[in-house]
Structures are given as structure tokens and as C-alpha cells.
């Protein structure tokens, strides 16, 4: 029972981590909270759903389509809603408001055009389980966890080993300096948004398979923001650890205490953490700089 709960928690935590990584990536480069991230996740799930139910593709192609689709959407989102603000160096409050506007717009456009119906993905895993030491683990949980960890590891390699990755890290440090060194910052930011969108696409498909696909499913990014704060805003390893910690603790609470209290617990944890560990587990100093 405990092992089963732990694996479910890790699998949910992996999905939180996928969302938190994309959010953290954008936060570390543009230093604003991208509240449209949830809408991109939701649209990624709808793209995956369309591919799975209309074209009857397998899980691999569905995920790939969703990754590319959500990535492109995320880049378009940046071009339309943030690029103009970014170029005139508007305060981050304006970017946050614009992001919220995008989120409300996209969510309600889906609501107005596709409708508020709950859709389910076709059963990719059925109810197949793996038995380990007397407890049964769902194949979906194990797969989701493995893919999340794999994807985040790949991102880590990309950021630390490639030329573009070095440029991104330089941009996180100082965007103006980075641009003086000959980096095309517009392209750099497009790559960052594509990566964040791609991760949102994977998260959307997994969320859709695990639960349902509906217009307000993006609200679950609340948890991703909390996970990012737990790990330390703007830190990628922090986002991974924060997501896993939050997923496991939440699942433990809903299994052993009460499933109703799950969301209240996450929020209380955020407040407690902000009091005692304001920079998160892996965070650096998070003061506003001059």
C-alpha cells in the first residue's frame, strides 16, 4: 500500500515537475510569472486528444504531436503578448497581466468553441499493472514517472552541453550582456518558450490520460507554481525536486488523511515554506535586483 502510494505520488510529482520546469525556465529568463502556462498545457492536451481520437495515433505520435503543437503555441503566445512589452522593458507587472489575459482568453475560447464537456483519452495502458513485492503498481504511473525524469534529464543536458544551452544560461544571468556578445535574444527567447511549451505538451497529455481533458484543466498549474516555489523560483533542479516532493506529500495526505484536504494542504505548505525557507530548497537569493 505504501509503495503503491509512493509510486502514484512520484508519478503525479513527475507531471508537476514537467509543468514547473517550463514555468521556471520562462521565469528565470524573463523574470515574470507566466500565468498562461496552464492554458498552453490545456491546449496541448486538446491537441493530443484530437490526434488520439480523430487520427487514432499511438501514444508516441500523440505525445510528439502535442509537444510540437504546444511548443509552437507557446512561441506564438510570446510573440503576440509579451514581445512588445519585453522590447520596451515594461515592468514585470505588465507581463503578468498580459499573461493572465492570454490565459483567460485561451481558456474561454476553448469553452466557447469546443465546449465545457469532459473528454477522456482512449485507454493506452488499460488497467495493466506490475507486481513488485506484493504491491501492484500501475503501468501508467511508472511510465509517466520515467518519461518525466527522462525529459527533465534531457533538458538538463541540453542546457549544460549545447551552445544554445550556454546562451540560455548566459541570458538568465544578464540578457543585455548576452545580446552584446552576439546572441540573438529574440531567437533565444523563442527557444526558451518552445521548450517550455514542449514540456507543457507532455504534461498536458499525461494529465489528460490520468484524469480528463476540459477547459479549466490548466488550473492545476497552481500546483506547478507551488512546486517551483518549494524548489526555489527559477531553479531547474529545484523545480524537479519541488514537483516530486509536492506530488508525494499530496498523495500521502489524500490517501492517509483526506482527499478533500489535499489542496488546502498544498497551500498551507506553501505558506509555511515561505515563512521558514523563503528561497526554496535549491533557490538562490531571490531579492529584486536594482
Amino acid at each position, binding site marked *: 500500500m505504501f509503495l503503491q502510494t509512493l509510486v502514484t505520488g512520484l508519478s503525479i510529482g513527475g507531471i508537476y515537475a514537467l509543468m514547473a520546469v517550463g514555468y521556471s525556465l520562462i521565469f528565470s529568463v524573463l523574470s515574470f510569472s507566466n500565468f498562461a502556462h496552464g492554458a498552453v498545457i490545456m491546449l496541448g492536451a486538446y491537441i493530443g486528444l484530437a490526434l488520439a481520437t480523430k487520427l487514432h495515433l499511438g501514444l508516441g505520435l500523440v505525445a510528439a504531436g502535442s509537444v510540437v503543437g504546444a511548443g509552437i503555441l507557446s512561441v506564438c503566445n510570446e510573440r503576440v503578448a509579451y514581445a512588445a512589452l519585453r522590447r520596451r*522593458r515594461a*515592468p514585470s507587472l505588465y507581463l503578468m497581466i498580459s499573461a493572465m*489575459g492570454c490565459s483567460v482568453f485561451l481558456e474561454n475560447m476553448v469553452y466557447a468553441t469546443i465546449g465545457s464537456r469532459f473528454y477522456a483519452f482512449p485507454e493506452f495502458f488499460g488497467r495493466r499493472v506490475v507486481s513488485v513485492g506484493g504491491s501492484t503498481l500501475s503501468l501508467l504511473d511508472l511510465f509517466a514517472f520515467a518519461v518525466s525524469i527522462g525529459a527533465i534529464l534531457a533538458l538538463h543536458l541540453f542546457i549544460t552541453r549545447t551552445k544554445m544551452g550556454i546562451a540560455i544560461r548566459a541570458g538568465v544571468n544578464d540578457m543585455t550582456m548576452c545580446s552584446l556578445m552576439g546572441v540573438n535574444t529574440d531567437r533565444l527567447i523563442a527557444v526558451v518558450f518552445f521548450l517550455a511549451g514542449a514540456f507543457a505538451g507532455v504534461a498536458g497529455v499525461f494529465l489528460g490520460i490520468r484524469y480528463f481533458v476540459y477547459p479549466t484543466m490548466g488550473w492545476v498549474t497552481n500546483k506547478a507554481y507551488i512546486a517551483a516555489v518549494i524548489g526555489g523560483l527559477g531553479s531547474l533542479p529545484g523545480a524537479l525536486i519541488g514537483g516530486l516532493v509536492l506530488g508525494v506529500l499530496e498523495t500521502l495526505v489524500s490517501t492517509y488523511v483526506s482527499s478533500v484536504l489535499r489542496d*488546502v494542504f498544498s497551500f498551507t505548505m506553501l505558506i509555511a515554506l515561505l515563512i521558514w525557507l523563503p528561497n526554496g530548497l535549491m533557490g538562490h537569493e531571490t531579492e*529584486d535586483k536594482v
Partner: protein
Amino acid sequence: MYEVNVALLACVNMIAVLGLSVFTGFTGLFSLGHAAFVGIGAYASGVLTYHWNVPFFVALPAGMAAAGLSSLVIGIPTLRARLRSDYFAIAILGFGEALRVCLENLSLTNGARGLSVDNLSSPAWILGGLAFSLIVTRNFLKSRFGTMFVAIREDPVAAEMAGIDLFRARLLSLFVSAVLCGLSGALLAHRLAFIQPVMFTLTQSTQLLASVIAGGMGSISGPVIVAFVFTSLPEMLRALNMWRLPAYGLLLVLIMIYRPQGLLGYRELTGLFRFDRFRGRIP
């Protein structure tokens, strides 16, 4: 009578928008959860009049106090001077959701089915509440504190250099805005005579935020006018109800790109007729 009801409802919304205007418009902090304070005001006063028959003139301040206290609970950990304001935006998002879960599961609030309270907010109460809020907001923002808030909005670091305690000033701004939202909630509950947890979610917070942004940050009259339009216009255009929220979202993005100062940014309605009007810096 229908028109009068819509106008009174608009007045109730205007009070909440005034509250958010103090926080977002004047202090420059982002909030997606002020509907939670409206909800706390509504439920605190509603539970008092429903379960214990407390008179309205006691329940109303109690709702305001409950909203104010809850703002301290969330404000103190998240607004601490050296933390980024993003923490507040994230925490209040979670706060709104957690509050909704609590309201839906407590027996005191009658859960998701909602609470039927008595219709106690007469037009006099509502107009009195609006006048009270307008006077308080105007005087408060003309005081030393209002100047501090504007300084923080324009440049927190410079404001701190000038000797402003960022944490205290931001917390005070949040407290005042939450109290006004609580007043709006208490009036709303006893006007509609029915409250439900789903009335105080992100959708409602977005509408408040859209009013403040479209009306103009750093203005009192702008958001108030827009709040009136935003409440009464959908009533006239019932057929287009479904497109109201996409329109709000699009409006937020377009305003940020093309006219970040909003309708009356950094100005007041009265100032439009003077030649020596103050034009604020628009970043």
C-alpha cells in the same frame, strides 16, 4: 426595477474594484485572488446573520474585519520585504482555491449548495457603503501612505532608499484593499440573498483585475467607471454572455500592449477639465 437592481449590483462591484485599485493600481502589486476576500466578507457576514441572527450593522463590519484579518494571514509570509512580489501572486492563487475547497466542505457554510441569507442590503446601505469607500480611498491615497504606495509602484528599490518600509507599506495596502473587498462581499451577500463558493473564483478575480487595468492604474475614477460598465454591459448583451470572458482576456493583453495606462491612467475624471493636470510616467 430591473435597471435599479443592476445599478446597485454595479455599485457593489465598484467597491471591490476600488479595493483592488489601491493594491494593484496604486501599489503596483499583482493579485489574482481578491475575489477570495470578497468571498470571505460575504461568508463571514452571511454566516453571522444566517446562523445567529446577528443584526446587519454588526455583521457588515464583521465581514470587513474577517477579510482584513485573512489578508494579514496571507500577506505577512508572502509580502516580506525581501521577497519578490511574484510569491504573493502565486500564494493568493492557491489561497483562493483552498478557500473554495474549505467553503464547499464546511457544514457552517452549507457547502457547495450555498447559503440563503436575508435580503438586508437596502439601496441606502449600498450607496452609503460606496460613498464611504470612495471617501476612505481618496483620503487614504492623498495621505502620506498613498504617496508611499505610488513611490513603491514606480520603483521599490528607490522607495526603500528613501526610507519606506516596503513590507509594512505593502501589507497596509493589502489590508485596506481586503477590507474594502470584504465590505463589497458583505453587501453582495445580503443583496443577492444567496451565496455560493463558485461565485468567488478566479473568474471573478479576473473581472476585478480587468476593471482596474482598463480603468487605469493609479486612478480612482477610471476603474470605478469601468466597473460600472463591466457589470451593466453584460446584462444588456445577455446573448453574448459566452464571449464576455474571452473579451476580458483579449482586453487585458491589448491594453498592456497599446495603452498600459488604461482609460484614465494616473489621472482622475475631475483632472480632465483642468489644464495643469499631472501626467505620470508611463513605462
